[in-house]
């Protein structure tokens, strides 16, 4: 199945990558996407979203899903 992957903020900079497409076997998880893309090159906490909703890394994916990885969010104000 085809999965789109996106990275944001500090994570995007560390990986020097904004988005990519992956081909994975049916039933693959968010964790597998992470292993194939981050390659152990990332330190610190990482959050994941599937189709723009927060998910944990054990979540199984479907063909065409968009998966995003990013650091903890820091919006709002002081």
């Amino acid at each position: 199945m085809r999965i789109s992957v996106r990275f944001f903020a500090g994570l995007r900079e560390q990986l020097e990558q904004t988005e990519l497409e992956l081909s994975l076997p049916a039933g693959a998880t968010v964790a597998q996407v992470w292993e194939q893309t981050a390659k152990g090159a990332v330190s610190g906490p990482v959050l994941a979203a599937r189709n723009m909703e927060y998910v944990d890394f054990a979540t199984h994916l479907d063909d065409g899903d968009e998966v995003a990885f990013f650091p903890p969010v820091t919006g709002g104000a002081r």
Partner: protein
Amino acid sequence: MNSVVLEQPLDPWQWLGRYEQSLQGTPGQTGATAVFVGSMRDFNQGDAVSGLFLEHYPGMTQCCLDDIQRRAVERWDLIDSLIVHRVGQLYPGDPIVLVAVWSAHRRAAFEASRWLMEELKSNVPLWKKEQLVAGSRWVEKNTPG
């Protein structure tokens, strides 16, 4: 009820004036309006900050703003709510975020506006990169509410 991701400068008082003119319902229902505006400071963690870039995840940022707003309106039975959040390049003094709620009584307005700010900071995909004299850095932690 409206939430907006804004790439242009934000004038909170102009937004509020215009939004209230468009409000549904009789004006006599609203007894309380609570507003919070967060602005860019020129100082953080001991360093002078000259600029701030706010990155977002376009579709998801909008969804998450809509979601926390809907939850606040339901939980406190609000009459209406407006959230406007800046993205892109900001400078010291620029408003970053406007949260406004309209309710029958003041307790709901105070509680809901504060809750919205805490949710916004912890759940909405937005990331701040500060520009310092000695380069730039991602803000990694929120301040306590």
